């Protein structure tokens, strides 16, 4: 079948429909021959369109645009007339012959070149017409056979090839332009929607998370992001005019947003689909080729490539590389991408940045957090409790923006705590298939061990476990644990836990809350809860962090127009939102002047007279006093220009 995802550089969607319709009139298919549309050979039309003369291409575009709206019998009639072109007066006859050759050329050539859409399973045209010329070529005549590049645990040699492919794909991706690239994004959206259940199955198999967590964070989240791109990418990535100051009169200033080249993206295991598609598409829409490395714990092998390919992405545009970071990480950096974007832990962040420093490759790091939630006494307690439980335990606490420290004002602490315990105990923990479980088990064994260490340390140092105290320290079904009496000696107070562990604390004043919420090391996100929005805003401004939700939790990520990123050891740079485009863009400044005989005042030769006029002009331009300043500036400007002209003609003397 014809790939509905077809995108052409040279024809619009409706022109392609016109071509398809015409193709099916010329080649309707028989019991042995496939029809034009069924082969999907239209997918290869750009191979021809690229080389047509501009006039011929325009002609075809127009014809197909018109034929798109014609019923098939009209096209049939038109072709019949063409078949009898010789019976018409020469002028009309010539037109008909040109039309016939144009229409037939555009349809017969891709069809009889035996080209099909990927996955086409019908009769091949060469088989139908019995076209099987054999051609044996020995070493010296043989085109070099490409040994396939190994993307699974690649060697450094493979990595070199991977980057070669990426670099070769770069110009092509760039050539499509934002608008056409966006069509691939729209296709991808449709593909993901269509394959939603399958993707969820794959996600649950790799992450064990609850189906509800999976659909909200990974499917809804991804679709919402793609939707955001569709609505905003063109606007944000279009060339921009910026003002040109008086002193540069007559010139134009512009900003272009161009791709950087090849982006290396490294993602963690907690949201393997979201953290794949979002950075990939963000980098791609700006025009970059992508090398993407998912976590070896949740690789979703083949899934991302499959979705992208169904959406029409070519294999070289986004290459997914599998393997353990420890084994292939260095090689991937050594391949010298033009940008590295990592979502992961501090440890990996440091290693990558250090390696990248060797080549001065720009990096952008989204690392972990130890995110505070600050609850003032004037809140709706039920809502704040529910928010805390979700913020701390969604995806079993395995989010970088999970609530890891809960601060409750002392006046409501006891009531809040009781509600918190009661509601937490109601959570259903399982890897379900119908959406009826709240949280799943832990995704990785390593994380289970890390949590066990923190729990043992806390217990030893006297922390009180209000829930989940009976966990055996081994089962991957780590229960939600609310912990009281945490002190600064305990690991649980300082280190990111990345699990369902929630230490709760009290505070008495706004100043104390701010002090407690400000972590000495991290600063990814925070939430502030209060009826008094002015107070909430005051606190939000004073917490040193990248993202703050007021009266909600982890919600800045819910709006794809907002940037995302941290401060301190939570990383740097911003991705998503308008600023996310800039992470992958070469923001180019362009100043346009006319080619003329005119000389610039600041060029050589320098003379004492020019110096005097220039300093008068500077004073006139930048001294206060608008009207007189303007008049003076114009006067000195003119004087300077006249003098520069004279200098150009006559030289210094």
């Amino acid at each position, binding site marked *: 079948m014809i790939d509905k995802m077809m995108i052409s550089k040279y024809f619009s969607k409706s022109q392609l429909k016109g071509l398809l319709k015409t193709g099916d*009139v*010329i*080649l*309707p*298919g*028989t019991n*042995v*021959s496939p029809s034009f549309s069924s082969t999907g050979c239209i997918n*290869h039309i750009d*191979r*021809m*369109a*690229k*080389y*047509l*003369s501009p*006039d*011929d291409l325009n002609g075809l575009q127009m014809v197909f645009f018109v034929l798109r709206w014609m019923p098939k019998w009209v096209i*049939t009639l038109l*072709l019949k007339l063409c*078949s009898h072109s010789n019976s018409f007066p*020469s002028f009309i*006859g*010539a*037109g008909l*012959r*040109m039309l016939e*050759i144009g229409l*037939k*050329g555009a349809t*017969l*050539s*891709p*069809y*009889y*070149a*035996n*080209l099909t859409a990927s996955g086409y399973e019908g009769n091949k*045209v*060469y088989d*139908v*017409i*019995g*076209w099987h*010329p*054999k*051609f*044996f*070529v020995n070493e*010296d*005549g*043989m*085109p*070099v056979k490409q040994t396939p590049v190994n993307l699974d645990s690649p060697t450094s040699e493979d990595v070199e090839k991977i980057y070669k492919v990426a670099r070769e794909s770069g110009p092509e991706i760039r050539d499509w332009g934002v608008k056409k690239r966006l069509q691939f994004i729209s296709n991808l959206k449709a593909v993901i929607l269509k394959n939603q259940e399958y993707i969820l199955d794959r996600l649950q198999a790799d992450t064990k998370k609850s189906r509800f967590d999976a659909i909200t964070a990974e499917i809804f989240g991804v679709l919402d992001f793609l939707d955001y791109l569709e609505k905003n990418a063109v606007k944000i990535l279009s060339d921009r005019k910026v003002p040109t100051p008086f002193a540069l009169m007559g010139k134009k200033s512009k900003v272009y947003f161009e791709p950087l080249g090849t982006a290396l993206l490294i993602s963690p295991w907690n949201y393997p689909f979201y953290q794949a598609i979002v950075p990939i598409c963000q980098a791609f829409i700006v025009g970059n080729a992508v090398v993407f490395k998912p976590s070896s714990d949740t690789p979703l092998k083949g899934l991302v490539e499959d979705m992208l390919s169904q959406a029409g992405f070519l294999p070289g545009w986004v290459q997914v590389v599998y393997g353990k970071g420890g084994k292939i990480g260095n090689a991937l950096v050594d391949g010298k991408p033009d940008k590295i974007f990592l979502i992961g832990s501090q440890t990996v962040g440091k290693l990558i940045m250090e390696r990248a420093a060797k080549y001065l490759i720009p990096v952008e790091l989204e690392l972990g957090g130890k995110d505070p939630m600050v609850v003032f006494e004037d809140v709706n307690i039920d809502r704040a409790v529910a928010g805390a439980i979700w913020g701390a335990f969604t995806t079993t606490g395995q989010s970088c923006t999970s609530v890891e420290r809960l601060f409750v004002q002392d006046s409501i602490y006891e009531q809040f705590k009781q509600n918190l315990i009661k509601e937490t105990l109601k959570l259903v923990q399982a890897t379900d298939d119908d959406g009826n479980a709240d949280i799943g088990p832990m995704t990785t064994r390593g994380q289970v061990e890390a949590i066990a260490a923190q729990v043992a340390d806390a217990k030893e140092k006297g922390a009180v476990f209000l829930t989940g105290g009976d966990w055996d320290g081994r089962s991957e079904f780590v229960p939600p644990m609310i912990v009281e009496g945490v002190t600064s000696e305990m690991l649980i107070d300082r280190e990111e836990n990345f699990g369902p562990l929630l230490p709760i604390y009290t505070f008495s004043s706004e100043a104390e809350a701010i002090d407690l919420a400000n972590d000495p090391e991290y600063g990814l996100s925070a939430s502030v809860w209060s009826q008094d929005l002015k107070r909430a805003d005051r606190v939000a401004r004073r917490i040193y962090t990248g993202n703050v939700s007021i009266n909600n939790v982890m919600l800045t990520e819910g709006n794809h127009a907002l940037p995302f990123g941290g401060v301190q050891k939570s990383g740097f740079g911003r991705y998503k939102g308008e600023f996310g485009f800039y992470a992958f863009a070469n923001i180019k400044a362009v100043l346009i002047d006319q080619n003329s005989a005119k000389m610039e005042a600041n060029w050589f030769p320098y003379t004492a007279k020019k110096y005097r006029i220039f300093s008068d002009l500077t004073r006139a331009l930048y001294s206060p006093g608008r009207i007189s300043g303007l008049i003076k500036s114009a006067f000195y400007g003119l004087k300077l220009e006249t003098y520069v002209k004279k200098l150009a003609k006559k030289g210094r003397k």
Partner: protein
Amino acid sequence: MAKDYFKVFDFIFVGAGISGPFIANDLCKGGANCLMLEAGNHYTRRTYPTNGLDGTSQMYWAGGLELGHDAKIAFLRPKVVGGGSIMNQALVDRFDDVALDDWKSVSGIKDFSMADMATWYDKAESEIEIQEIPAKFRNKNAEIFDQGFKNLNFDNAPLRRAQNDCRLEEGNCCIECLNGCRLGSKQSTPETVLKTALENGLTLASQVEVTQIIAKNGDIRVIGRDAMGGQVSYRAHNLVLGGGAIGNARLLLNSGFGKKLPHIGQGFFCHPQFMSFGIYDEKINSHLGAFQAFKSDDKGFRQEGFKLENVYAGPEGIALLVPDFGRIHHEYMEKLSHFACIEVCTRDTNPGQIKVNRKGKALIRKEQNKEDINRYEKGAKVIDDIFKSTGAKEIVHGRFGIGLHLMGCCAIGTDPATSVIDPEFRLHGHGNIFAADSSIFPNAPGINPSLTIMALSKKAAAGILRSR
């Protein structure tokens, strides 16, 4: 190439087709400092396109077929390093008395005689290898051709092809040679004279289309457009035009030479060729093995102004030639393996004309007069008889003619009023602009042109070297 901007070359060549590399090879050997500019891409054996869609799109001007004002003949104009020698059928024939005498009288140049040309043909042939297809490798299509000629008592001869080893014994099917020969057997200029020219210091820039020539004070400047669309310019003492009939005419007209030389663009010929197909009950598989082996060699045909050739084409090409569309089209194409194919090539008498429009695009005006149509019809009739005598069940005439031998527009001759190039291969009135390619043909010889282009190029090169 930027570094070459300031350099003044001895010779700049426009077009790396057949003529350009033949001349450059001799001049480079003679120590001249040469730059060759070619609008098309530079492919190698390893990179030739391997299907008809890519081949036609990538290696011809305008992405494939060009049409004249009446759209009755489709022109195929090579645009690739190697020009026509990359995708042509590599048939190499010397001219006969008929062709040369005709040239002599039109051009006023005495040298157009069998005796004088023989030297140059010998020299040209020494640069390439030429073979006949051995009898045991003739395919069924060739057998039908041969049998038909025997049945009807006409004379034929084996084709002489510029090739060195098609390794047919290994089972190769050479039809793909029409998109460039991956074996390196076809004696295209990149495999022969262009290769040695490059070894002898020729600078070649592909994907540079020359758009203007400025000849002033004995100095040449050429302006061109590179692959990115940017302007480039180069300087030289001399210029050699090897852009082919349409290419040279277009360039000279766009550069304003038409004012003094009104004959530029006049006298365009193309040996209109028409394929006919005989459909047989049994499979013919014309595309297998060596896809061509015979040509007509009949005195009568020569007098009538046509010749027949045993040829074939790719399915994209044949699909355009069979009648109608829809089911009927499919029915023909589903029988493709039952097709035999013979082509009539006419020696056209009615000159066409190349003009340029405001945008500098070449406009082709080429009509067949009564005589030309008559020649075609006589040839097509013989083909019909051949097919009938060999048992064809149905005969199909191609829907339109094809122009592959694009010739003329810068005719050689003694009189600047009726010609463009002088007998010393110089542009009339310009001692430092030369041409010896297909554009200088004063009329249609009715014989495959490429060997004569090579011979004339050898002769021109010798003249240039002598006068240096």
